[in-house]
């Protein structure tokens, strides 16, 4: 991380002009004038089977509340999940949906999104699903920048298989498979996503419906891969993992609310650039004003966003929440479709296929 004086205040590189980029749902058919949908329209007839108190309930309710606001035709929305408690999600939403196999949802969704530009495609995944077995697909979906909204339900545990540690479990965490405490170094999903060059990266909390909804709305508008880490409580196997972020007073002392164009602060502390550790929080009166970090999620270079993601500590003494990065670049699916469209100058006829089959060097045998 450089701490060059110029880095801190100005966004780097020729980022897109805000507002000029095509929306993530621009090619998805919208409801007709006067038509509207409600939460009920997005509620399937299936009985929801998560444990009582599971954070997944509130996320489901938030999404069922958000989807009608997108103004899209319901039949053009698709949710694809992997395997895990969280991955049961599509069954409870009355859209098109696929509950696939462990870790593979980003790959399946990539095929769907690439072949259908008229769909709004969402991926639902858990911390084990996306970061362990499916880690490869996750990073490649983000690298390619496929127009997918990836909702990573992070409960820092394997819920469905009853409580083994996951790639986000903290060092020392005692679980069914780590009776003496986990020795695995966890992933920070936001850092990972930024490392994979995801254009939209955010973090939010299951029970903060307003924040969750606003982040998801921004993700839907973003054209390209969006990774949203949602801290989700599993009351059965990892209860209270995010409690310090939920209790009003302790949350105030810990959550860094990332706001575009605003200084990065926590209470009376402010984030500054530091030669050694990238970004660091210091009491405001000790901060050199020239080194104060102003949040620019639209900065083309992900370095600052990455440095912010490293402010996290395992004990959650300070946790940035909000949109770390929101940068538009060409999506894989748009680029693939453009190549095909450019090559396909006219509809394919039988005669075209005849010529293709005959190839360059045919010969004729006459009767």
């Amino acid at each position, binding site marked *: 991380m450089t701490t060059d004086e110029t880095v801190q205040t100005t966004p780097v590189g020729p980022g897109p002009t805000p507002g000029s980029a095509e929306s993530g749902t621009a090619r998805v*058919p919208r409801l007709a004038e006067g038509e509207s949908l409600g939460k009920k329209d997005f509620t399937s007839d*299936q009985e929801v089977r998560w444990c009582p108190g599971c954070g997944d309930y509130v996320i489901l309710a938030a999404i069922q509340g958000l989807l009608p606001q997108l103004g899209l*035709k*319901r*039949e*053009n*929305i*698709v949710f*694809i999940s992997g395997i895990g408690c969280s991955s049961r999600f*599509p*069954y409870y939403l*009355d*859209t*098109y*949906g*696929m*509950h*696939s*196999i462990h870790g*593979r949802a980003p*790959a*399946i*969704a*990539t*095929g*769907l*999104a*690439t*072949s*259908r530009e*008229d*769909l709004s495609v969402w991926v639902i995944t858990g911390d084990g699903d996306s970061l362990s077995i499916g880690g*490869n*697909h996750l990073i*490649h979906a983000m690298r390619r920048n496929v127009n997918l909204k990836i909702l990573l339900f992070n409960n820092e545990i394997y819920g469905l298989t009853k409580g083994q540690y996951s790639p986000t479990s903290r060092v020392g965490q005692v679980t069914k498979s780590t009776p003496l405490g986990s020795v695995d170094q966890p992933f920070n999903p936001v850092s990972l996503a930024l490392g994979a060059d995801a254009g939209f990266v955010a973090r939010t909390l299951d029970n903060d419906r307003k924040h969750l909804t606003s982040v998801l709305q921004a993700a839907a508008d973003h054209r390209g891969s969006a990774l949203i880490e949602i801290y989700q409580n599993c009351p059965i196997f990892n209860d209270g993992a995010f409690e310090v972020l939920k209790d009003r007073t302790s949350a105030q002392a810990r959550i860094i609310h990332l706001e575009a164009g605003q200084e990065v602060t926590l209470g009376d502390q402010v984030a500054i650039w530091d030669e050694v550790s990238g970004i660091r929080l210091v009491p405001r009166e000790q901060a050199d004003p020239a080194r104060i970090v102003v949040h620019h999620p639209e900065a083309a270079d992900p370095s600052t966003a990455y440095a912010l993601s490293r402010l996290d500590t395992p004990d959650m003494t300070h946790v940035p929440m909000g949109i770390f990065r929101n940068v538009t670049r060409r999506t894989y699916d748009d680029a*693939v*479709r453009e*190549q*095909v469209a*450019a*090559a*396909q*100058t006219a509809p*394919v006829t*039988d*005669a*075209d*296929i*005849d010529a*293709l*089959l*005959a*190839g360059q*060097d*045919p*010969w*004729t*045998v*006459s*009767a």
Partner: protein
Amino acid sequence: MPLSPAGIPRCGGSGRTADHDGTRGAPSHVVGISHSVCTARSTMERTHENDEDIASMSTTTVKRLDRVIIRFAGDSGDGMQLTGDRFTSQTALLGNDLSTLPNFPAEIRAPQGTLPGVSSFQLHFADHAVLTPGDAPDVLVAMNPAALMANLPDLPRGATLIVNTDEFTKRNLAKVGYPTNPLEDGTLESYDVHPVALTSITVEALTGFEGLTRKEKERAKNMFALGLLSWLYTRPMEGTELFLKAKFAGQPEILAANLTALRAGYNYGETTEDFANAYEVAPAAMPAGTYRNITGNVALALGLVTAAHKAGLRLFLGSYPITPASDILHTLSGLKRYGVTTMQAEDEIAGVGAALGASFGGALGVTTTSGPGLALKAETIGLAVSLELPLVVCDIQRGGPSTGLPTKTEQADLLQALFGRNGESPVAVLAPATPGDCFDIALEAVRIATTYRTPVIVLSDGYLANGSEPWQVPRTADLPDLRVEFATEPNGANADGTPVFHPYLRDPETLARQWAVPGTPGLEHRVGGIEKADVTGNISYDPDNHDHMVRLRQAKIDGIRVPDLQVEDPTGGARLLVLGWGSTYGPIAAGVRLARALGTKVAQAHLHHLAPLPANTGDVLRAYDHVIVPEMNLGQLAMLLRARFLVDIQSHTAVRGLPFPATELADVIARAVKE
């Protein structure tokens, strides 16, 4: 040096060109460039006799042969595959029937001049129907000592040997362990040896090319060899010239050098006294029509594109590179003009996942791979079985287990394709018999996948993938109509009468569920890999429902309509049946032909459908006293047939990474008859 488009005139130097389209392939006429200027020959009747002296020339005579097997062998860097390909194209244009066997190491460039680095290309061409690339070459072109050492054991006595003497240096001989020079020590006594200083003559022919290094000049020696062989077997060279012009369009000097070397090789044949004869092989009698030469991989790719066109679906390929399947990805990625989307995925799992996602969206999802990749795709194929969506999975088999023999052929993925997934997970499995048949099998795979909403696995292999044969080009309009209909409206109703969509409601005939694609209003539904209730598709852990669904998925595959197994038995009196599947078709047919020529009564049948098997399979097996099943594995089909039909089957197997020699199978037949 400009070349006339008609190539180089022979027989007295007239520059008159042949009318290719008018005469090519007509069985009662001898055609080709040289023939039109040799009137003595052009009126001759076609004959199958060997070595008939049909014309005399200034320095050589042209003899007619009924068939020739040539093997080009050299270092991996010598361009033998290209040389073989070009010779094949020239031969195809003359209307000969042919079959090829490229054989190359897995390493791109093994150390130069070593045995592991030897790459070869065998071509069998004839004036009659050809079934295999041939057991033993009549002609071996050996570009270095390693190529000679590696291939000499396959060469029958009396065969022709063209050797690049320049490479037979002390150092190169030592590299492969020749204590003395085989060109001088009598090793090659029983062969018709033609020593040619290929490298130095090529370099000399390119004296004027000052912009080229010696290395670059030497690299053109394969074109010299091709020119020489083109003269020796009276092959037209314009196709190769056009090919070179396209290939080196941006490098005029390299292009000119290659053209010069090609021509120099041709002229060398004509002027040197070393070759007493040149040869020609008349066109084979083939049904009237348009033909091209095609490899299995290209045929498969074109079959998929054509099937998508006939189905009215967009083709989506998700694939991860692996030998020998990658050429399908290469070919399809160049066919965007036909609406084809290709995605090179991060791994095989993603390749099949993306294909399945595309199928969910209403495209024709296809994935291509080889054995190791099929293993990785297993779980996703199982998901497709549960989702009951169309999916075409092409496994171009290679030697296994593990990495095995990447560039060699094998048929050992049959049981993996049929059973290599968790749970009862039935899929349709098909296997093409010849390179050209890959096209038909692609259409059949798409028909089954879309009609029955099921994954279909196509088992091709390295031999079919890279081998080529003349293929009669079909007319698109004559091919089967594969049009597909998506669900458009609800197919059921709630208790209160509201219309609903039941994703697992089935067509009573095919047992297929409807294909309801996102974007269709009113049909919103969820599918998944968890067991579901029939009709509604809701998650169900009910024991009886699971039993029902397991049997239903099997019944759907069992009920796929496939054509009956055809038995070929010219006398009708055979008591012995040879049954094969996949790429063993050619070798088996050739072996059967040899056996029949000796008066043996033997029947042949070949399976294209491995799941489900044709309905009459059991009846066919039981109709013979003795059934032989040759396979390039340890008897996988034989085991299956024994278990299924309780028929005692003689399993004949070999896993050498090469197709069966026809003679080996003829021996197996002969021994079985004696018993």
